[in-house]
């Protein structure tokens, strides 16, 4: 397996009135193409911050984050292109633009990346089809959809520019168990069939079943979890 992501000694500290809070404390790990990496942790453990560091939505205070061998923490790194082409986000609260339809939400990242209208439409229809969103739902505004539908649209949006890394922050946190399972299966499918590097942060231990690699995060520190002999630790 090819290493897509390598994180070395990454730290992030936030300044608060009550004092400095170290959300991520010297974290090191790798994630590979075609594999699902699950990071377990309680609320406030720093797992979402770690995800945002990987997605370049936050800047680390120290350490290196290499994607395909390039350090995205360097000042010369083109983070806009990185966000457009390398990573796709799936959020707990979906973060769809409610005034837009499912189709428009999916075409938006492609539009920002200057894809042609035809290309945008064809790819969005294809992705939504893969996520089980039919034609009627494609034209439905995001605020009229169920949680599961929204999350499937959010995954389609994350895949719009065909990124290498899918970063999912509590993707099942706002869904019932059955719907959550479907979403997890989709994410696993993206790793297995499409060769994506999928990183899921969650507090839901049942997702560990889907993981190739699993870590537990506590007070900003990351520890590996043994998840079975057949899979790597």
């Amino acid at each position, binding site marked *: 397996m090819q290493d897509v992501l390598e994180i070395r000694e990454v730290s992030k500290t936030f300044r608060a009135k009550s004092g400095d809070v170290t959300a991520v404390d010297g974290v090191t790990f790798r994630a590979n193409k075609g594999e699902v990496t699950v990071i377990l942790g309680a609320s406030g453990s720093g797992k979402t*911050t770690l995800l*945002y560091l990987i997605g370049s939505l*936050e800047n680390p205070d120290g350490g290196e984050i290499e994607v395909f061998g390039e350090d995205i923490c360097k000042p010369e790194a083109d983070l806009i292109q990185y966000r457009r082409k390398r990573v796709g*986000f799936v959020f707990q*609260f979906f973060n769809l633009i409610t005034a837009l339809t499912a189709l428009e939400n999916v075409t938006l990242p492609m539009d*920002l990346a200057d894809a042609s209208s035809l290309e945008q439409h064809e790819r969005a229809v294809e992705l939504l089809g893969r996520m089980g969103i039919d034609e009627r739902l494609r034209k439905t505004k995001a605020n009229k959809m169920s949680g599961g539908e929204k999350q499937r649209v959010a995954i389609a949006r994350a895949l719009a520019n065909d990124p290498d890394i899918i970063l999912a922050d509590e993707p099942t946190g706002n869904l019932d168990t059955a719907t959550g399972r479907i979403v997890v299966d989709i994410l696993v499918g993206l790793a297995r069939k499409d060769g994506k590097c999928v990183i899921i942060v969650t507090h839901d231990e049942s997702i560990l079943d889907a993981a190739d690699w699993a870590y537990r995060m506590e007070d900003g520190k990351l520890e590996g979890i043994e998840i079975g002999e057949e899979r790597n630790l």
Partner: protein
Amino acid sequence: MRSVKRGFRSFRRHPLRNLVVILLLFVCLAFSLSMLAVKLAADSQVEEVKQSVGNYAEIRVSSDYRMALFEEERSQDPSERAAQARTMTEEEQLEQRTRFLVPEELADAFSQETEIITYDKVLETQITLSDITNTELETVISLRERGPQGEGPAALSSNMFSFEGNTNGASASDFMLGSKVLVEGSFYTYQDYLDAAPVVLIEKTLAEDNELAVGDTITATISGESGRDAEVELTVLGIYETVETEQQAEGTNMETFNPMGDTFYAPLSVVQTLNGTPGYVGLGSYYFDSVDSTDALQQAFDANIADGDTYELATDYSDFETIADPLLKVGKTSMIGLAGALGACALIILLAMAIIIGGRTRELGVLKAIGATDRQVMAQYAVEVVCICLVAIILAMGITALISQSMGDWLLSGNQVAATDTSQQGIVAGGQGAPGQFMAGPMGGNSLYKEGGRFSVASSQEQSTSLDVVYQGNLFLYGVLILLGISLLGMAVPLVWITRLRPARVLSME
């Protein structure tokens, strides 16, 4: 371009929210543009007034100096005065004749001021023409002699005629203002003035009564002299007709009523000779560039011409004030209204955008997280702001065309009432018009140069009663500027918000 499309689509997606903002902006913009239209119209009309009123001045012997001379004469015993007159030298006699006149060189010197555009010199006097008779005046005199008052005034004679001299017949105010029209022959020219050509313009009725035609000659006698040497042959160069104005026809304006038609117009140098006062004029009359130069000219006059209080510079500034003051007040009021309404527009757009952007913080975070640049997001929101402002300003411009005239009339009526009140108070308090009126004292309330002329009070009031709020092209340009202004202001909110926004913060929020 894509950001523009996204912004436009986003604008269409929030019709209700946009409608509220547009309505609020529309009200303030309609008021702003109406005030602007009124301001532009008032300013434009003030400029028009400036071109015709307030730029006329005369140099003449001051009323104070005249009064002082009258007082001095009155204090003298008549016999003493007669004895003094008999022993006068020629120089003293000339001084006596010219005491109410202005030296021509002073009038010429003042004309060198850079603000002066055109000038003329005028001398009016009474001249005896022994070989013609004013038949209408003769009738008046005979009626007076038969009447209960007995004898007519000693100075009144049917051979006495008014002579008005200036440097160019066509520019005599009566002809310029149209109260008299040349019907035969031609005007004397500036060259005639320089050459002292003995020519005159005569009134038509008088010419007919005395069987005079263009080319005929009449004999005038130089004032204070006698014998053949005192006679001057004058050739009739032109015949004019007096135009009966509406007011004259109704008999309401006695000041301009002149049934005798006894005025002859001749080159100034000829009238000076006939009057025995060469080198002196009754007044110098000047048109200067603008009413704004009044102060500068007054200072120049005081410094170089005034000779103590002997001469005065009279201007029609008070006429300008009468006409322009309500317009200036309307301009000021509309400016205040404009500033207030634009302030309200600014406040509305800032608050509206703060609310709109505040409510879409998560959307901003998402856009940034999926790879939108600050510029792309800014452009999208800028288009939304511009669309809102554009719709509001188009509607406002439409309604402005309908209401601005009413606004102008309303403001003008308010200011005219105020101006009338102030004017009346001034009359009661000082007897010479509104307080603070420039040159009100020296003018003594008299009209300038020619009574019933272009600066008469009636025409002033007529001009000041209306304000034509024309929907000018520059209003459209100002509308575009206002649109740009409020749009830029509206964009400031998303600009600050977007550049400071950290997507990681907003995306984690429930």
